[in-house]
């Protein structure tokens, strides 16, 4: 699709030819994830996480559709349909439910790694701005889906999560409270809220799948980025997606799925909260209420505003939390450095790792108890998060002296050892296209 040397689709089977002439779907698939998509040959393992996110989206959709066959979306029946019917009565229901619960955590985990890979290697830079922005849209949809799914078992954490998160909207003056009541269909989470969350929780994953297609489409226009950040210059720099990257993705997916299976089978509740095994009680909030781990950094930012300053502290917290994600949409224009990869940006690299530590601290604070030390630490970490993107990144991209870039991807990979890297029987590939061959020894 993206490069002139991309192999065109040549159907081998007459049936495939028959289909391709009438609906060129096989051609599209071949060009997207088959031998017709040339990929830089130097991708490291950080480039495997996009495919992994796709795998976990598939797992979530498949297990979710099956769970929906047994789930009851009513305030009287939801808790029992999950904890009695699905967990005990439905054949293999416990496995499907645990797979769905932990699948959400793994989906977020691989997505976070995917996002930070993009941050380090400058994958958001021209010409891939739209790839980045569509990815952020997917992430926002994931957050909405994850939140609404967590409400469905109608346990204590479900209920109070719904109460707190819809409460974000009440922070906005005048329109906030009516919006909250409209979203909930009542004054507190109840039947109306539960049913609409179920409906949307079923819908949004398919919207995500649609945006994923746009994300990949936009990616395949310039082609995949790579660890050097240097553009692909010739066919020597690329390999066909299939079989090279399908094989690598396949092996890495197997490794990660093994880890996923370990957690699902041996520690299925490790990432959850015991309080969610208590049925929802609108009259008592759990003593230590926290969202799922993947929302902790944002929860810490929300909690770090304790004093009114022009606007109420509550509104500041909500605005800061929303803008912590929204500002990522402007990243391609905040970081103006022409060098993409953090490997060739010594100053940027240090600040990148500081950001990683900062987000980990925010995550820890978001899940921790509230005390004076944690609030102060959370405030410092939240302030640094914004400082990184709004001040440090623009300044670094302006003043940093970057390291010399390799001339091409193949040069950075081969270090002149072309003969060693060539396939057996080939010692040298000339630019002109003629291939000098020797007999294999």
């Amino acid at each position, binding site marked *: 699709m993206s490069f002139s040397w991309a192999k065109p689709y040549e159907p081998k089977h007459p049936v495939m030819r028959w289909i391709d002439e009438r609906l060129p779907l096989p051609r599209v698939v071949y060009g997207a994830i088959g031998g017709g998509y040339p990929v830089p040959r130097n991708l490291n393992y950080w480039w495997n996480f996009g495919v992994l996110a796709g795998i976990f989206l598939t797992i979530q959709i498949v297990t979710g559709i099956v769970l929906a066959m047994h789930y009851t979306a009513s305030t009287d029946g939801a808790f029992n349909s999950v904890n009695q019917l699905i967990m005990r009565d439905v054949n293999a229901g416990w496995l499907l439910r645990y797979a769905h619960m932990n699948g959400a955590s793994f989906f977020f985990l691989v997505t976070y790694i995917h996002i930070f890979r993009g941050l380090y290697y400058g994958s958001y830079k021209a010409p891939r701005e739209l790839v980045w922005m569509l990815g952020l849209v997917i992430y926002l949809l994931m957050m909405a889906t994850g939140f609404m799914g967590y409400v469905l078992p109608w346990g204590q954490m479900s209920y109070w999560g719904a109460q707190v998160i819809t409460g974000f909207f009440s922070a906005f003056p005048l329109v906030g409270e009516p919006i909250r009541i409209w979203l909930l269909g009542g004054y*507190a989470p109840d039947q109306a809220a539960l049913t609409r969350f179920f409906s949307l929780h079923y819908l949004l994953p398919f919207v995500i799948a649609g945006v994923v297609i746009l994300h990949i489409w936009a990616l395949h226009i310039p082609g995949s980025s790579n660890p050097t950040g240097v553009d692909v210059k010739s066919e020597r720099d690329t390999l066909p997606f299939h079989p090279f990257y399908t094989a690598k993705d396949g092996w890495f997916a197997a490794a990660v799925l093994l880890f996923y299976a370990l957690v699902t089978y041996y520690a299925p509740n490790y990432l959850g909260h015991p309080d969610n095994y208590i049925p929802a009680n609108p009259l008592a909030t759990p003593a230590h209420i926290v969202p799922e781990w993947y929302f902790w950094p944002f929860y810490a930012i929300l909690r770090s505003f304790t004093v009114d300053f022009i606007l109420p502290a509550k509104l500041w917290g909500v605005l800061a939390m929303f803008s912590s994600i929204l500002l990522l949409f402007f990243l391609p224009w905040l970081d103006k450095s022409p060098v993409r990869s953090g490997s060739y940006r010594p100053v940027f690299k240090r600040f990148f790792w500081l950001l990683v530590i900062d987000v980990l601290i925010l995550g820890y604070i978001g899940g921790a108890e509230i005390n004076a030390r944690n*609030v102060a630490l959370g405030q410092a970490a939240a302030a640094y998060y914004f400082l990184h993107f709004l001040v440090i990144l623009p300044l670094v991209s302006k003043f940093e002296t970057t390291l010399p870039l390799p001339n091409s991807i193949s040069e950075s990979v081969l270090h002149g050892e072309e003969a060693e890297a060539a396939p057996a029987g080939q010692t040298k590939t000339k630019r002109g296209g003629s291939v000098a061959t020797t007999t294999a020894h």
Partner: protein
Amino acid sequence: MATKATSAEVNDTTGPEEGVRRRDFLNVAAVSFAGVGAVAAIAPLIVQMSPSADVLAMATTEVDISKIQPGQGIKTSWRKQPVFIRNLMPKEIAEANAVPLSDLRDPQTLAERTKPGKTNWLITLGVCTHLGCVPLGIGEGENRGPFGGYFCPCHGSAYDTAARIRQGPAPKNLTVPDYKFLSATTVQIG
């Protein structure tokens, strides 16, 4: 497309001084009609989300407060939301009255938050004005926070003995719902 030729013809027959051409008018009118129809069709999709009449019905709750001793409180429910009813001790009333209004984020006196002659009866929603958790402090032995009133475990908002916000992220005092004393021992909320 034939649009160009047709519009040119129309232009010729009606003349430039006519202003709005017939075809343009038909286009705008047709699209506007469809647009208004589409907007009207969205209305039921939006209003179905709002609380239905049974939820909106102004339910009232009558509460017997005769068993609540000074220093005690109870938690009851009104319109699916928790309500705190507390019988304040003289010490708590004195504490609340000793606070200068300038120290308060949402300035209100205890007298403004209670009924005349019944300043010991503090009736508020048990809904933190930050993000809607139920604060602790109404039950025996619960954490009442640094100001001796209520303490929200979710994000650390602390309320004083008059349930006024004193510390933490919540912007407002705990809401005082509409209520009246039907007798010395019965309160009607709502």
